[in-house]
């Protein structure tokens, strides 16, 4: 009976089912009738909600390379228990981005063209190759988790031999990719609002994604504890929170310096939708979390840790959405709001990503230590044996 547990109705299962059904209908509309009929995109504003979510998916996946580098290159093994969740998040984040890109392409059947038709002068070319290469790296980084489950020791040994090389490649591709999203907007200086346009946009994108990616790991740890009744590793998470604090301060100093140097402070005094959203982005995504996280007691308090992670993620969402949508709205001359199909497909993919994360966490040793307890419990009741597992 246990294998049918997932069929038991619950509030979130019903909501998820409705979203997925709606999303499938919209996906049919998108591919049957084309972008023009199913979206509110237009010729002068061809990038909308889906591009914004591409930025979010990639940005929130940044913990994958950050944590992998921290543990495997800098040998800070304190964070080892969160390497797998971070890589899984990155893997799912990138899969979400790939799905959204296929939906967003005018001619999705030609998605493979950049593989053989190289245009080395295009930023899009760099982005495409970074996605391909980093997704491959993530697959290799996550493969041991799947292989462990099926006790395939030989392939694990082979992968371990190349693991450092794979991690270094991952850091390189991910760094290139995170910053190349910023570079994408360097080619539209007249279109992106000056509050967000900057020659340092690639650097901003890179620095901000590290804080957001780490916050995502904190947020996911709470989701995991909520779903599987596991404990919260406060010692690790408060360490992450300190790294987020440093990242946010660095990002703020960089932004402020750049605003002063480029003479952009004047734009902060002009009342506009852009200015209000910029203030909101900086307030909830930087200033408020910096205030919370700079207090050691609050950083070690699970409630404030959760609140600060939600704030940093919210600020990051605002930032990426502001760059991709708010910042270009005025220059496109039209007010864009996504259509039902755009919203529905996006929600469906987000729900599928959450379900995929839940499925993998439930069935594979991702949250090592915490998860192994449940596996022990299941194995014990199934086999009634005294098999012992030591979590190290």
């Amino acid at each position, binding site marked *: 009976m246990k294998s049918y547990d997932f069929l038991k109705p619950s*509030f*979130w299962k019903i909501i998820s089912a409705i979203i997925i059904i709606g999303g499938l209908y919209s996906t049919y509309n998108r591919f049957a009738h084309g972008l023009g009929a199913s979206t509110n995109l237009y010729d002068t504003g061809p990038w*909308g*909600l889906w591009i*914004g979510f591409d930025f979010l998916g990639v940005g929130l996946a940044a913990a994958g390379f950050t944590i992998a580098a921290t543990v495997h290159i800098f040998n800070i093994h*304190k964070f*080892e*228990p969160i390497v797998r969740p971070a890589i899984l998040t990155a893997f799912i984040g990138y899969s979400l981005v790939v799905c959204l890109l296929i939906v967003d392409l005018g001619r999705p059947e030609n998605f493979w063209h950049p593989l053989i038709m190289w245009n080395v002068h295009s930023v899009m070319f760099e982005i495409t190759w970074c996605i391909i290469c980093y997704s491959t790296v993530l697959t290799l980084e996550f493969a041991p988790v799947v292989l462990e489950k099926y006790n395939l020791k030989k392939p694990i040994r082979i992968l371990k031999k190349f693991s450092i090389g794979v991690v270094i490649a991952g850091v390189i591709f991910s760094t290139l990719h995170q910053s190349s999203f910023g570079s994408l907007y360097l080619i539209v200086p007249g279109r992106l609002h000056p509050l967000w346009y900057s020659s340092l946009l690639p650097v901003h994108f890179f620095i901000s994604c590290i804080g957001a990616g780490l916050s995502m790991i904190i947020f996911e740890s*709470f989701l995991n*504890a*909520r779903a599987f*009744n596991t*404990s*919260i*590793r*406060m*010692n*690790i998470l*408060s360490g992450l929170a300190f790294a987020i604090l440093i990242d946010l301060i660095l990002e703020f100093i960089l932004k402020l310096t750049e605003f002063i140097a480029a003479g952009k402070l004047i734009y902060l005094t002009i009342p506009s*939708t852009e200015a209000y*959203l910029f203030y*909101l982005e900086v307030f909830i995504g930087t200033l408020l979390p910096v205030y919370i996280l700079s207090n050691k*007691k609050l950083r*070690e308090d*699970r*409630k404030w*840790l*959760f*609140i600060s992670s*939600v704030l940093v*993620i*919210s600020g990051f*969402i*605002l930032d990426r*959405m*502001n760059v991709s*949508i*708010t910042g270009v709205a005025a220059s496109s001359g039209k007010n*864009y*709001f*996504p259509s039902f199909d755009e919203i529905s497909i996006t929600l469906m993919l987000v729900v599928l990503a959450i379900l995929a994360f839940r499925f993998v966490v439930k069935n594979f040793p991702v949250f090592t*230590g915490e998860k*192994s*307890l*449940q596996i*022990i*419990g*299941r194995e*014990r*009741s199934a086999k009634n044996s*005294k098999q*012992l*597992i*030591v*979590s*190290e």
Partner: protein
Amino acid sequence: MVALSVVLTFLFVILIDMLVLKFQGKTHPAFENSFVEDTVSIFDDAKIVIPKNMFLSKSHIWLKKLSKGLYQIGIDNFLCKSFTNMSFNKFPEPGNKLKFGDALFEYRVGNKTLKILSPVDGIVSSINKTESRDKIIDPYSQWQVIIQAERIDAQNNFLSGKKAAVWIKEEFKRLEDFVYAHSGNTELVGATMYDGGKPVESVAEKIIENYLEDFEKEFLKL
């Protein structure tokens, strides 16, 4: 406005999830309520916070049920506050059979060892060396051992909820008395204590460390 809509949707989903959990009689792990939250006089910031789903034993360890017969075990806030500089010395081997009162694990405090006794009969299933190496910040999150045991809530030597909170507050008071009673050496405590002053945390710790055997007898016996 798209940016605002996306953020509000994100926050709205979190809010709805909180309400769903509240409707189900559960609490989000970030906002897990304690039965009692109180401060004690001996340490400046020793709050009594006991999560709902835990049992405390008189040997100052907590137990949390994972699944049928499996319990996660860690040390409670009282031990954590009493010894901020202790480190793990000895773990039980997975598979070891333990009887009520056997040494479950050992800490090193200075150059002495502190034995924590098992409040149940059972078999050690798993140990958590990774987290045990780290400093304990949140004692009720950092587990050390998983044990396979019979139902523990049916036994009398466990406390939960309000009873646990009242008991542990009493324990902190007893600890204060213990520190005073063992503070004959004024060089350690300072004369201020006799005028109603409190020993600073490091001094209280030093006294407890110096009289570790007495501490074990007084606070860790079952």
